[in-house]
């Protein structure tokens, strides 16, 4: 059965974190990632009647989002930052393959509520304000290696927290219309 607009929107929102992450990986700017995600959602909804299964919709959405992201990177002379096409494609496939897994976004949001102090500030500077690690090192007076280490550990702590929260959850069943 063809997906309705509502169903398309629901499915894309369910995979929003993954799709936005795939775009962010190319553009490294959360606002641009959000804009591209919204553009893709609009396009998908105006393609009504063309999608029958979730994997088909997501495959289309990832590819469309990637193209927009690469166009943006090109226009903004940031193409050199984009990982190789093979890597991007493999990661997209893995993202699509994970649609049946328990969504990590909500667990991550809960974990973030528990983080405060220097780590919260570091993550905010890096991903919300978009500062590079060199700029963060200058701003905070820390060494560059120390910034990378702290950031690496912060990501690992968040991952551990997500795993704890999702461990007992029942994986969500994919829609195979």
């Amino acid at each position, binding site marked *: 059965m063809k997906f309705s607009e509502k169903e398309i929107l629901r499915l894309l929102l369910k995979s929003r974190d993954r799709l936005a992450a795939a775009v962010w990986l190319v553009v490294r700017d959360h606002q641009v990632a959000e804009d591209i995600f919204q553009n893709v959602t609009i396009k998908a909804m105006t393609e009504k009647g063309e999608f029958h299964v979730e994997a088909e919709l997501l495959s289309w959405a990832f590819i469309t989002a990637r193209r927009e992201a690469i166009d943006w990177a090109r226009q903004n002379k940031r193409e050199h930052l984009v990982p*190789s096409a093979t890597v991007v494609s493999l990661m997209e496939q893995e993202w699509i393959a994970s649609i049946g897994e328990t969504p990590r976004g*909500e667990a991550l949001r809960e974990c973030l509520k528990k983080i405060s102090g220097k780590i919260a500030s570091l993550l905010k500077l890096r*991903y919300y304000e978009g500062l590079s690690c060199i700029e963060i090192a200058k701003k905070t007076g820390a060494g560059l290696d120390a910034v990378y280490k702290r950031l690496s550990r912060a990501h690992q702590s968040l991952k551990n927290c997500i795993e704890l929260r999702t461990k007992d959850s029942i994986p969500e069943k994919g829609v195979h219309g």
Partner: protein
Amino acid sequence: MKDRESKTEFLLKLLDGTLTDSEITQVNQLLSEDPESREILRSISEQAVVIAEHSRIHSGEVPVSTLPVESVPGLKAPRVEKGIFGWVSMVVTVVILAFSVSLLYQAVLLSRVTRESRKTEGKPEKELAEEKQGRYGQERFSGDAVATISGASGALIWTGDRGRIVNEITVGTQLAGGTIEGLAPDSWFELRFRDGSTVTLSGASLLTFADQGQKQLRLREGRLSANVEAQPIGKPMLVHTRSARLEVLRTRFDVESNLASTVLSVSKGKVKFRRLSDGSEVEVEAMHQVTTESEDALVPAMTSGAVHRWKSELNRDSGNYGKWQPPSDQMPATLKAVPLIPPAAPHVTLYLAGVSVDRSQGSPVVLKPGSRLVVRGRLRHAAQVHCGIRVNYPGGEFAGMFRGDLQKDQPLATMDSEGRFEEIYRLPQFTLDPAVADRKSELASRPEGLILDGAWAFTHGQRSAGLEITEIEILPPDSQGVAFKDVAFNKKVAMGQVVPTVLRPSAMRSWVHGAVGWLEQVAR
């Protein structure tokens, strides 16, 4: 780099844009081979967008797009902060767009119905029925379909109208134009148009096609063989490549296109060939070949006689599949196997490198009974190196694919101290590739006497064995200089270390002969 923390730091530097060019190459290699590194990068990327969103909410900027999924399906008015492009504006846009699309769709539908009724007016019933059924009565074309898939195997993707993407292409699928991409050297497909004309593509290839009264094909990459029925007067089939344009009325030909050149070989009829760089044109007749490579006047050359010996040329532009690596002091140029996940078997990762047989040299490479395929290269870890070939009929049509390895019984490749290996596969051992087993009756049963079109080697497993190809060679049966590994391999057979349990009698004889030869050599 082994531990997770150092991988994470390396990837953070990649995201930060602070890596050097050689480090970027290194990190791309790591990412393409190491699932854990990809998992780390996915995790960082997901965390990055959610952290940004979390910070945005807590700074009071934009909470709108963070509404939980459950609150959206009913599209109940989400809140919008001033000056921000949020969901309400998106929904409004969607409604407007949907309304416009709906109107447009109805208009198109109306005009199509009118057009169809005009077209059928006054035509005899028989003609209409024939049209509906297709001239050849074999397949019915529905709606806007312009062609049907009459043969397919390997990894293929079709991108159709309005970006629709289909991974599972099966025989009988009807297509209303679009782009078909063959993802690997063992991919091939055949399209049959309404008038019975067929085009076949094999290997890594990209073809866009349409037929709105005139067939238009754009071959961006790969090799295309076509058998074209008589086309309407004034509307020849047009084949566009990066460097040439072909006009075809009724003929049989094959054309190969890559970034650098286009090579056309005509086996029947006549094709008008236009070089785009200078606009020069020439008519190419049967058994002639022309290429855009030369900067001189276009002069078709007679297709030269067959050769039985061939060696791959690894360069950037030859349409090979894999990552080309330039020569160094220690190693010649190599083609590094790249991961391939077949859409039909997403749990399998192959590491594959393939070479095309370059037609620009002019001579078809004909396989003789007893020819040998030699694959030379390097491995990082011991692995079974599997191989396959693609062959064409003399007219250029696709004839089939064959596997030269012993599949599950293929022994590990023997490497020297630097990881170099040389594997020899004898033509009598080759068996039909399982990928085309369902078309066994239509394709050639053996590769002997056919023209080599491409060859590939691959490993498979959880990890990459680091396969790099330095050379693939076809040796005729009477040639000298067969490498030492042939003897070593026969020794394994003689010693019982390799038991080829699935060999055909002919292959078994060949192996026994080889083993006996080796024993005689030792005895002498």
